[in-house]
């Protein structure tokens, strides 16, 4: 395990776990914000892991996640703004 992977683990535990907790406990809107933040943090973790595995060609995944989580969030927002 190198520093990149260690940083990824720290980011998962310190970043995505709180997002999971908030999406469980909070209101729908808070959960949505947590999901968005989780998407951003996951993209960062993908970057760190691609670096940590020494496979830089896998940064595509982070790029895709960054773009797609925005589109997915838009779907949620358009629903939540009408229903809540």
């Amino acid at each position: 395990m190198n520093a990149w992977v260690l940083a990824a683990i720290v980011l998962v535990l310190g970043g995505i776990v709180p997002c999971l907790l908030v999406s469980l406990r909070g209101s729908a809107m808070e959960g949505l914000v947590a999901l968005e933040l989780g998407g951003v943090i996951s993209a960062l973790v993908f970057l760190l892991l691609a670096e940590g595995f020494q496979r830089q060609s896998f940064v595509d995944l982070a790029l895709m996640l960054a773009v797609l989580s925005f589109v997915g969030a838009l779907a949620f927002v358009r629903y939540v703004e009408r229903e809540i």
Partner: protein
Amino acid sequence: MTVLQGVLLVLVALGGTAVVLVRDPLRQSIVAGVFGLLLGLLFFAFQAPDVALSQIVVGSLALPSMIVLTLAKLARLQRPDE
């Protein structure tokens, strides 16, 4: 097994449990989104970037939009009964 895989496996197990236990469909779909992110990370840690990419695509785009559109339509269909 590496520490990364262990951590992500435990989180996936917890996330799956959380998805099942949340009863409200809209909030459940949000938790399912976080679960999908965790799954994608786990697959990447399992050295399966292709599968991780598919999981990202399905989990953060295809499933949420279908759930949300279904819920919106269901809400509209249910309104006359209220």
